[in-house]
């Protein structure tokens, strides 16, 4: 890393002073020629998207057009999106949990854990509601805003909320040892995340087994009405996304909030490392 230190920084500021105003000007100049904001006659509003508005309900059975595009027309993108978040979970596991080294001590000014009667009671009431709402968001995804991703994040956040108050599941000795075991372990979260991806890709491959293209749910033998079949399959892949996202959110929070642990310990918290 041979960059000259202080000269390098000054250089960078000078370059930045020239480059970023230029970037801004360029962007604005280009934007001036784009179709007017809100123009219903713009190419974006007239070329491809009308089919998603006019035919989505008949073709996919989803009243929420965003869900129809997300899970069906562009379901392959969503498989990719699920793989992206899975990659983040995998990365944090490799970087933090499965690496050697010691946990970082809590930073100065950050106390831990912070349980109290009020927080405790509030969490007891709030968390079940959040978890239930997460499932509602998942199931209602194709007629109202929401779906697997949002539901998964909410579900993961509910579990995080418990851990924030009662301490992470793996760091024993918090002030409520009886409830720390609640929620999946790090290894459990990983298994959930993997199962989600496998479920999603599995539905896609099943469609191929019945003679369709990858992710062409219409060929699945789930009924006679193609829109209804697609609706069912959409629910299936939303559930798969839900699993991956909930699992990965757990992995991200656990690895980042615990920091580094001795090799193999957090992942094997339910059993010791076996070599």
């Amino acid at each position, binding site marked *: 890393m041979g960059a000259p230190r202080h000269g390098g920084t000054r250089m960078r500021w000078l370059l930045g002073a020239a480059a970023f105003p230029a970037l801004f000007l360029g962007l604005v100049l280009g934007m001036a020629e784009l179709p*007017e*904001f*809100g123009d219903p006659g713009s190419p974006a509003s007239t070329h491809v998207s009308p089919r998603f508005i006019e035919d989505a309900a008949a073709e996919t059975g989803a009243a*929420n057009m*965003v*869900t129809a595009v997300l899970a069906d027309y562009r379901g392959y993108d969503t498989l990719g999106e699920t793989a992206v978040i899975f990659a983040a979970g995998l990365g944090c596991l490799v970087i933090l949990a499965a690496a050697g080294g010691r*946990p*970082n001590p*809590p*930073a*100065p*000014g*950050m106390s*831990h854990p912070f349980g109290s009667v009020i927080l405790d009671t509030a969490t007891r009431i709030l968390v079940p509601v959040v978890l239930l709402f997460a499932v509602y968001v998942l199931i209602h995804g194709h007629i109202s*805003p*929401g*779906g697997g*991703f*949002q539901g998964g*994040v*909410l579900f*993961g*956040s509910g579990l*995080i909320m418990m851990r*924030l108050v009662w301490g992470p599941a793996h760091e024993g000795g918090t002030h409520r040892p009886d409830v720390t075991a609640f929620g999946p372990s790090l290894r459990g979260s990983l298994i959930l995340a993997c199962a989600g991806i496998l479920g999603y890709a599995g539905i896609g491959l099943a469609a191929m087994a019945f003679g369709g293209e990858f992710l062409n749910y219409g060929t699945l033998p789930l009924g006679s009405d193609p829109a209804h079949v697609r609706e069912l399959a959409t629910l299936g892949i939303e559930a798969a996304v839900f699993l991956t996202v909930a699992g990965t*959110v757990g992995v*991200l*929070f656990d690895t*980042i*909030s*615990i*920091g580094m642990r001795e090799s193999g310990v957090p992942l094997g918290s339910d059993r010791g490392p076996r070599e």
Partner: protein
Amino acid sequence: MAEGHLISIGLLAAMVVSAACALAVKDLLTAAALFGAFSFLTATWFALLGAVDVAFTEACVGGALTTILFVSTAFRTSRRFD
């Protein structure tokens, strides 16, 4: 809603201000809180434009999850920017 709609412009301006503040303050927890505010403002603006799904997701992710992750990182690294 026309282009110059006051609520829209106001929200956008508030977004820029909160983002700039989040990048400028010294304390990481303050920055994370400001970033959360930025995300919620963005989510509100998305909802105003009829992008309810995006608004919902941005609120879940930007407002809650990203902020929590930033705070967790602060917990294991350093509360102040150094």
